């Protein structure tokens, strides 16, 4: 078992958003969480990664058997949790290459592996960038500054393929991407996926799920999962929207 969320309740600011949320994710599984805008999907991703301002009021989260809520943001990342953010942050003055070198070496250090020197790192980064169709010039630019929506998401995907997390959470990973880019990013995600890893795909639309096949689809409304099923559930949502589920709870 990679991730187990038990009876989680959490607040965004002072607003209660996550209510008695339960989910178990095993190695090798791809889960999709679908829900209408404002349901709290991004909030869930921030609670998992430990973003300040998102407070857990009750419940537990176990990650690789450890109490995730006792870990700092960076510890969670080093233990193998990665979030493709819906809104990646701009960091003026910090070039992509040096940012990612810090990240990779911080992770390596944590796992007792020798740090990569600049040459080794640049080689690795260039290879991964090429697979995602990222122009090497982009790697010299400050993180996300002036990037188009698509470029931002490609950079998120690049960080994921370089850091090789055990559990990747994709929060609207396809928003802002044209169809070719969706294909490239999905290919990167699919190549990363193996029996030791897992994916949690958070999405409003079904589109991405045609490129990354989920084993499980969960409908997220009113702070928790209201229905779980297989791929066909996402197709049903595509047809009928979320109204049935949001009405159901009323």
């Amino acid at each position, binding site marked *: 078992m990679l991730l187990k969320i038990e009876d989680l309740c959490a607040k965004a600011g002072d607003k209660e958003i996550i209510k008695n949320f339960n989910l178990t994710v095993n190695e090798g599984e791809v889960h999709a969480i679908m829900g209408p805008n404002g349901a709290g999907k991004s909030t869930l991703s921030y609670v998992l990664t430990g973003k300040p301002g998102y407070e857990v009021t009750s419940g537990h989260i176990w990650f690789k058997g450890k109490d995730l809520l006792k870990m700092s943001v960076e510890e969670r990342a080093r233990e193998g949790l*990665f979030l493709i953010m819906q809104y990646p942050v701009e960091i003026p003055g910090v070039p992509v290459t040096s940012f990612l070198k810090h990240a990779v070496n*911080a992770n390596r250090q944590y796992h007792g592996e020798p740090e990569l020197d600049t040459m080794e790192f640049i080689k690795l980064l260039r290879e991964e960038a090429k697979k995602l169709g990222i122009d090497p010039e982009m790697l010299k630019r400050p993180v996300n500054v002036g990037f188009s929506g698509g470029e931002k998401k490609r950079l998120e995907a690049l960080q994921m393929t370089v850091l090789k997390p055990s559990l990747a959470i994709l929060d609207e990973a396809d928003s802002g991407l044209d169809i070719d880019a969706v294909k490239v990013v999905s290919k990167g995600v699919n190549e990363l996926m193996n029996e030791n890893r897992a994916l949690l795909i958070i999405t409003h639309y079904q589109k991405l799920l045609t490129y990354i096949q989920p084993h499980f689809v969960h409908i997220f409304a009113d702070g928790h999962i209201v229905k779980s099923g297989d791929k066909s559930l996402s197709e049903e949502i595509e047809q009928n929207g979320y109204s049935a589920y949001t009405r159901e709870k009323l």
Partner: protein
Amino acid sequence: MSDLLPIIPLFGDDIPWLAGRRAQGRESFCLPTAKTEAWKYTKLHTLQRDDFVYAPSKFLQEFEGECEEEHCSCCGEHHSDCTCGDHCQCSHKPNLYIDLPFDAYQIHFNNGKFMPLYPALSLGVEVMTLMQAVVEGQAKNYIGKYIDLQKHPFAALNSAMLEEGLFINIDNNIKLSKPLVFIYHSNISQPLVSNICNVFVAGKNSSLEIVEYYYHSGNEKDFYFNNIVNEFYLAQQAEIKHYKFQNESFKSAHIALNYVRAREGAFYKSFCLQKGADLARNETKIELMQENAGAQVDSAYIMNGWATIDTTTDIDHLSPKTTSNQLIKGVVGDEARGVFQGKISIAKDAQETEGYQMHKALLLSDTAEIDAKPELEIFADNVKCSHGSASGELDQDQLFYMRSRGIGENEAKQILIDAYLLEVINHIDNEQIKEWMRSHV
């Protein structure tokens, strides 16, 4: 420190104009109080003690033959066991040479005293002690002539004790190939006051790069007070680039006044990184005398603990088409206090002048403080000017983003601080010096 300065016999007290300048300094000196406008934000409690020490004159001994020994060419001290030559055997040879990551001519001061080791400079560049320049008659037209001692109390103190320092003259059309680095070593545990005055005279169309490195190698709690005055005289089209890294001991005091007087088409460009001292002030006063003279004054400061670091600029546009640009960026943590006072004055005749100034500071704690006073005084009507001051905190979303990739919190903060200061460090033209400064933020 009290307003009454001790009387220290100095070289040249018998030269009327020099004695007059010292007397004027002595009379003008008066420790600023909370009511002194120019020192309103910078509290001087670091100087509230009465055990200050002044070193006796080295020049009196030398010129009046009290000491027969030559200076040791390695350490610059007088001593009898010196067997100078290629391999100095002297027992107390301080190793002054510093490995710096840029090629330069090194000049050393040790606890306020110039070590007479002259770099082998190319033709057209002269380096001599200020007192030598007094003897040779070159100094009179410069030293302290244009500085208003009533307004600059520490320049008054410096004048009262005027003796140490260098006179540097660069001839017309000479361009010095390597920077001249002044390394001010401090390694003393006494409350020593060192008054140093350097005069730089740059001829027409000459160019010179100067680096000042205030380097402390003693106990980290050493208290001492470096009180510096630099005077820069730029003839037509001359260019001086002045880099300073102030890294004094964290208990010390450092006060510097850089006075610049630029003629037609001359350009003074400076960058100052202040990191050390409990009380530090770097003040730059520039007079753009003639058309097309220009200045760029950039600074960065990083401070923690209870330190006060003050950056004060005062730029006078006295002629048309003069330009000035300033960017000052600071990072303030703990209970430290950053002070910025920036004034741009544009005279009535100084049409088509441009003066820009920006101060930005990053506060790392709730108890850190910034006091900023930008000022514009414009008497001409056809000018472009702007000024401003802004302070903020580290961006929490950026910190979270970095940490969510596994970067530790402190490392993430350091990366953001580095990036913050990079904007101003990038103004440094000399790539090696830029890297050197960057490695110290």
